[in-house]
């Protein structure tokens, strides 16, 4: 009996230790001061949130669940819900650092995502916090250039040519991403950086189908720090494809309203033909009978 009690005390002690260790594991993830104070070089917007969502759904949902649903995987230490208070109380820099470096069961994402993609994930996590206001660096004396873009398509090399200007001057080292707008979402064509002439080239798959003239809706974004621009254009750069109705020239209905004319004619001609033949025989027989009576 006494022995049993001691056994219980040992189990209790172990459990307490585990709980404390768990709490510690969560709270003592020390982030270097410099990393903690790091601010995003991008302004969080809807596009970043959407891209962050794609990355999050692919890489984070399996443990952290859907933010604000509290459906994270029960693990030790618990991964937690990114929309919850302890997560949102951190600085942007701290989140960025933890996703990038990882620790223990939290994988390191430095190799999987580039810095701008990591900021997309931070932007997505922040989108669940209504009270969040993005902290911006001191912008005094810094002028954010206003970009303008010119799009063209080089059909010799199948490349989308993007020229980025600010006040007529070409802008080098601007990140350009080009998308084809589909019915339900945007398809990434490619990302590139502008050269010293302010030109970026993005590969276009020549098999991509466009409309009858080969037009597709293209969306191009240019970003460099807080400077950003977006253009949407309906331009010829894809394979011209004719779009056919799924029921064009087909008669899959069993009702006569949709039946082809040759079928209707054949039907009526054969029906009337049979009737005519029958009547011809009946009248013929009657005439024979009549003739016999007269004779």
């Amino acid at each position, binding site marked *: 009996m006494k022995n049993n009690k001691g056994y219980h005390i040992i189990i209790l002690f172990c459990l307490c230790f585990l709980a404390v260790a768990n709490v510690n594991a969560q709270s003592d993830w020390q982030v270097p001061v410099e990393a903690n104070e790091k601010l995003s070089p991008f302004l969080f917007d809807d596009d970043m949130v959407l891209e962050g969502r794609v990355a999050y759904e692919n890489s984070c949902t399996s443990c952290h669940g859907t933010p604000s649903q509290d459906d994270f995987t029960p693990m030790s230490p618990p991964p937690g819900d990114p929309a919850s208070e302890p997560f949102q109380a951190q600085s942007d820099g701290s989140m960025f650092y933890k996703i990038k470096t990882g620790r223990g069961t939290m994988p390191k994402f430095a190799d999987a995502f580039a810095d701008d993609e990591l900021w997309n994930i931070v932007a997505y996590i922040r989108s669940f916090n209504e009270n969040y206001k993005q902290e911006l660096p001191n912008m005094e004396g810094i002028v954010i250039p206003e970009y303008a873009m010119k799009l063209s398509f080089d059909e010799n090399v199948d490349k989308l040519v993007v020229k980025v200007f600010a006040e007529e001057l070409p802008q080098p080292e601007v990140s350009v991403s080009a998308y084809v707008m*589909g*019915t339900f979402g945007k398809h990434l064509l490619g990302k590139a950086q502008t050269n010293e002439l302010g030109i970026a080239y993005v590969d276009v798959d020549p098999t991509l189908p466009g409309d009858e003239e080969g037009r597709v809706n293209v969306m191009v974004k240019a970003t460099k720090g807080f400077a950003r621009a977006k253009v949407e254009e309906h331009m010829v750069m894809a394979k011209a494809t004719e779009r056919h109705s*799924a029921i064009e020239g087909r008669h899959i209905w069993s009702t006569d309203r949709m039946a082809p004319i040759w079928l209707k004619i054949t039907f009526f001609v054969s029906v009337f033909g049979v009737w005519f033949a029958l009547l011809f025989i009946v009248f013929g027989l009657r005439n024979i009978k009549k003739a016999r009576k007269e004779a």
Partner: protein
Amino acid sequence: MNMANKTDKSRRRFLQKLGIAGASTVAGSALLLQGCSDSNKASGNKVKVLTADNKLVEVDVAHLKPGDKIQDLSYLQKRGREGIPGKKFVMVVDLAKCKNARKCMKACQSAHQLKPEMHHINVLEMEDPVKKTSYWMPKTCQHCDNPPCVSVCPVDATFKRQDGIVLIDNERCIGCRFCVAACPYSARTFNWTEPKNSDQYAEVTYDMELNVPQKKGTVTKCAFSADRLREGKLPYCVSACPNGVYYFGDQNEDLVTNGTTKKTVRLSHLLEENAAYTLMPELGTQPSVYYLPPREDKG
């Protein structure tokens, strides 16, 4: 006197005619001008809609907003029969990702006024006889390009539209269930009893793209959420999936979008790289729903 009367009459008549001609010219040109200025906006096709504060108003089709509840049955019927030009909708189901969350089924049943035992989409457990394992397979209407259900319908109640969607018009359906028997995928279900919450839907105008309100004694099936597609949104089941099982898109664009991650990929690449297949291809029904086989390494 007589002569004077005559001239007076003719003058009056002349003035009258001139007046009428003038007035009609003014009115005609005003109408014409009005027509010119509005030609880009109005189509002249009026429908009745229910506004947010429950008022019935008549608006032009071109001025419809996505959230408007249209009350005009004939307009809804015409729109439902015609479909969306230039599109050919397809669905891709990634079996490796399905974990039987059944969120698709719930979203579908609540949107289409279905009882728990009635399914437009059903997640089935499939046994793999070779590996002695099982996997989950969501199954909807396959929206075949050669739909056997459509060929057997004696009253033209079920039909295929130009955008590839096979729909049912329950205003025409006589409940013969020929289509239920003809469908090799068992995609169709029959309203044997009064549909769920039928009293709440008593005043709702029938929209065949949503197939609501359901009617007792008629057949119902997956409509690829044609009402949502019209608004540029993904179907109910596709958006509800938490595991990224469904891709949905337009075959003409060769782009499909994942309902969970919202990632848009090339349809042809997705099908080719993952050895996609369709159900019962030997029947020649040519389904619009593709399956990516379950894999062991991903998921």
